[in-house]
């Protein structure tokens, strides 16, 4: 360790923000060192100052920030240096990988151009040789067909590929220090596992120091050598990864680790036998949903022949990667999307094809919690009014009575009553999501649809939120369709689990069966890709995953385009290999095959244009 070159040295590093006539500290007395080839992870919840620290190191903070202390990269002081000095270091010695690859790459330039730009900024290089080097870099990050990808625009790449391009760009000048700010947060688990593999390989190959910023303990366990835990701008604990995970000293570290959902750590939740036999609350049969054709973009079949049911008091976890159609199923179940064919029955009432009046009646038995708490509450409506709206519109309560019901609902989600006059932006993410639940439960629904309610929350907030949801479910006994990409969450809550891929249901079964003895290859790869917050265990899982993929005749490389792009020929090949049973079914039903097979290939090209296809949906009504 001592022999390695010291890359980054941070001493007495402080960041304060000047807000409304007051200094607010964002990072306090940070001290750390980072050697070549080493990975230091900064872990903390949102608002703990981890990103601020990373930005502050290279002077990228807004003007109202005051940075003090000392930051040395390869022995050269970085703080309070003229911009000309910093520019020599930025990109060349220190490179950033940002969280959201779509916004970090400029959408009007090709990926290749953006890499060439970095190269030619820092080196005396001709356009030809820069292009060569760029393609070399794209090869290094394992982008399929690098020469072709060089001329692609960011929107033509999938999320994982974009993140790879972003990494290629940041590696352009062989940086000594790589700062990765939540590099995998926006990605699916399987893609995340690949990006983590890639980063591990690159780090070894290039011998860079990596400063990893993340809130995901699983990612930390996978990659880091040392860990720095931050809370409210203070360094809580710094130690080796092994010590932090096995012998955490500080109570905060312990609580942080405890709130990470672990696979298989919770007892099986059983339904009362009377409930298991009862008439299902939600019955979905052969559901097909298509986003209609728009101009030259053909119709896209988002959900294809899905059938399942939910019994009273049961929680069904619907798992799948982004683009698998799980959210579409949830929205259709509450009548927000038109059904192409098949049926959805809520308490025996058909939702497919129901008119507005009937839908309104049916919706009184359902509630929905949306994914993004920031967008699902009307920013101009005080939350008390948001919560009371379903009651008010159903003419169930008015005036004083409505007032009381709103207060009861706030109590039940453990929010102070005085919050009722607040606007959504005055609440934290977890609190907003509680408001979302309160609103969904206002009508005491028989079915609650929870569409990734925790994906925007910190782990500790998520843990509290899941506790609350579980308590409420125990008390009120509503059935619940819980949609998520996080298998750990499903593990805590669900009685049964359904797995979706490319609009089809891959596997449905009781929780234990699906998690411990999955029968389908896709479920296995999905489970294997989930990082576990324990370095040793994670190493084992990593190897097991590689074996699993190898055993299935898929190399990591070929899987990459498969799971990311979901469109090209190899994708289909792997699906078939992964699920021979399903392929057989496909062959057995030749009548139906022709129709869904055709729109498939172009439809997936439309995947990046998702928001626009989404737009088309409400129009139809």
């Amino acid at each position, binding site marked *: 360790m001592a022999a390695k070159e010291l890359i980054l040295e941070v001493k007495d590093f402080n960041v304060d923000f000047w807000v409304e006539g007051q200094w607010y500290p964002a990072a306090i007395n940070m001290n750390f060192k980072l050697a070549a080839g080493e990975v230091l992870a900064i872990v903390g919840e949102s608002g703990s100052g981890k990103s601020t620290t990373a930005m502050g190191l290279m002077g990228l903070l807004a003007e109202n920030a005051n940075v003090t202390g000392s930051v040395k990269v390869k022995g050269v002081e970085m703080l309070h240096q003229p911009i000309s000095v910093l520019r020599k270091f930025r990109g060349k010695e220190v490179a950033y990988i940002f969280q959201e690859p779509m916004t970090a790459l400029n959408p009007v330039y090709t990926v290749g151009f953006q890499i060439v730009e970095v190269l030619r900024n820092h080196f005396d290089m001709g356009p030809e040789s820069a292009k060569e080097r760029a393609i070399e870099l794209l090869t290094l990050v394992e982008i399929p067909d690098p020469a072709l990808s060089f001329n692609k625009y960011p929107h033509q790449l999938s999320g994982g590929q974009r993140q790879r391009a972003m990494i290629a760009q940041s590696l352009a000048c062989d940086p000594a220090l790589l700062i990765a700010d939540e590099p995998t947060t926006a990605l699916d688990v399987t893609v995340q596992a690949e990006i983590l593999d890639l980063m591990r390989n690159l780090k070894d190959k290039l011998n860079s120091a990596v400063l990893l910023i993340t809130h995901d303990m699983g990612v930390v366990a996978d990659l880091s050598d040392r860990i720095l835990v931050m809370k409210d701008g203070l360094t809580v604990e710094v130690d080796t990864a092994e010590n932090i995970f096995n012998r955490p000293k500080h109570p905060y570290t312990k609580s942080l680790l405890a709130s990470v959902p672990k696979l298989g750590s919770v007892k099986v939740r059983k339904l009362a036998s009377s409930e298991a036999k009862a008439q299902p609350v939600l019955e979905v049969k052969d559901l097909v949903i298509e986003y209609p054709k728009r101009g030259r973009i053909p119709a896209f079949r988002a959900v294809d022949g899905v059938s399942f049911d939910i019994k009273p008091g049961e929680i069904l976890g619907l798992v799948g990667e982004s683009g698998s159609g799980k959210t579409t199923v949830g929205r259709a179940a509450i009548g927000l999307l038109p059904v192409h064919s098949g049926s959805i029955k809520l308490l025996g009432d058909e939702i497919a094809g129901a008119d507005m009046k009937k839908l309104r009646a049916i919706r009184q038995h359902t509630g929905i919690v949306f994914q993004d708490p920031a967008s699902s509450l009307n920013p*101009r409506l005080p939350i008390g009014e948001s919560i009371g709206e379903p009651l008010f519109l159903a003419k169930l309560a008015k005036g004083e009575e409505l007032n009381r019901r709103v207060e009861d609902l706030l109590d039940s989600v453990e929010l102070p009553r005085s919050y009722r006059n607040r606007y959504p932006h005055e609440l934290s993410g977890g609190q907003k999501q509680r408001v979302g639940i309160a609103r969904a439960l206002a009508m005491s629904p028989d079915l609650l649809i929870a569409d990734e309610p925790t994906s925007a929350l910190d782990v500790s907030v998520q843990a509290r939120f899941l506790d609350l949801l579980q308590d409420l479910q125990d008390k009120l006994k509503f059935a619940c369709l819980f949609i998520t990409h996080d298998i750990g969450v499903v593990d805590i809550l669900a009685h049964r689990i359904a797995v979706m891929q490319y609009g089809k249901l891959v596997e449905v079964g009781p929780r234990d069966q699906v998690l411990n003895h999955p029968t389908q290859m896709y479920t296995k790869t999905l489970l294997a890709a989930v990082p576990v917050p324990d370095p040793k265990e994670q190493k084992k899982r990593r190897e097991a995953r590689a074996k699993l993929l190898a055993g299935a005749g898929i190399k990591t490389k070929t899987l990459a385009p498969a799971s990311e792009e979901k469109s090209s020929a190899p994708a289909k090949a792997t699906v078939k290999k992964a699920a021979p049973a399903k392929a057989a079914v496909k062959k057995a039903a030749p009548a139906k095959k022709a129709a869904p097979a055709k729109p498939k290939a172009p439809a997936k090209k439309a995947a990046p244009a998702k928001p626009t296809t*989404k*737009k088309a949906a409400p129009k139809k009504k």
Partner: protein
Amino acid sequence: MSEVGQREQLVTTEGMSQGTIIRKKFLQHKPAVAGLIFMIFFAIFVYTASGIHLGTNEAKFTIQGWWKYSHEDLLPTGSCLSGCPSPDHPFGQIANGRDYFALVMRGAEISLMVMVIIGSLGAFIGTVIGAVSGFFGGIVDAVMMRFTDFIITVPSILIGAVIGYNFGAQGVVTLAVFLGVFAWTGLARLVRGEFLSLREREFVDAARVAGASNARIIFKHILPNSVGVIIVSTTLLLSSSILTETGLSFLGFGVQAPDVSLGLLINQYQGDFTFAPWLFWWPGIIIILIALSINFVGDGLRDAFDPRQRKDVKRRKKARLEAQQSAAANQ
């Protein structure tokens, strides 16, 4: 914080609706309230000063104001040759002896009326067309926006001239109404854009699930979110309506002598600026005051609708005090 939260939890808080909160916040916005009060008093002052003159020459309905001269009276000029202000004529006189105060009051009356009519008509039609078009999209949107495009392609000064030529004799109210009917296009475009993006937000779905009708979603959920755009462009519309009216009057299609408007007064007497500057200054200052107070009221409305603008001085002071106390306690 959590302790405070728990303490508060026991106390029942009176629920406030969106409307109540907005009214409260607007009343806390001092410049806006000042602007509103000024507008009200100024309008009363102006209308009572010159009285009310409605209708055309044949069927005239008139209520005399408290000012001793009418804007039509031809009076003997005073001692001052250039008609400078005197106790009898506080704003001075113009060359043919008319009292300038009466003229300015009459001009302000006309200008205010034109502004209010064009502004409210334009804002209303624009908001409704934009909202409907953006919310429903599809064929409704296509038809309405092509219609909007058609209106935009016709120059407004031409429309004004045709209207002024045909209906100018029926008084300035008719003219203002017609101008208002054509003034909504820009606003409709902006509101439509806002609605297009807002209707994709999840809170719209949430409202729909809660059982809200389309009308409720449009007016209760989306419209308050696009109020910023509406107010900004309405303020611009109000000031531009003064200009439109002035332009038309200058061309001889708008307000016609012996009637006056503020724009017309400025236009007529800017040449006299060197020797009788008050002829320019009085109407100028009044236009500036009107525009300013409209802007203040608009600002206040926008802030009142915007939940992020907490002009809650008491609360901020309290927070600062608490922070100071805790800092002192830590030391």
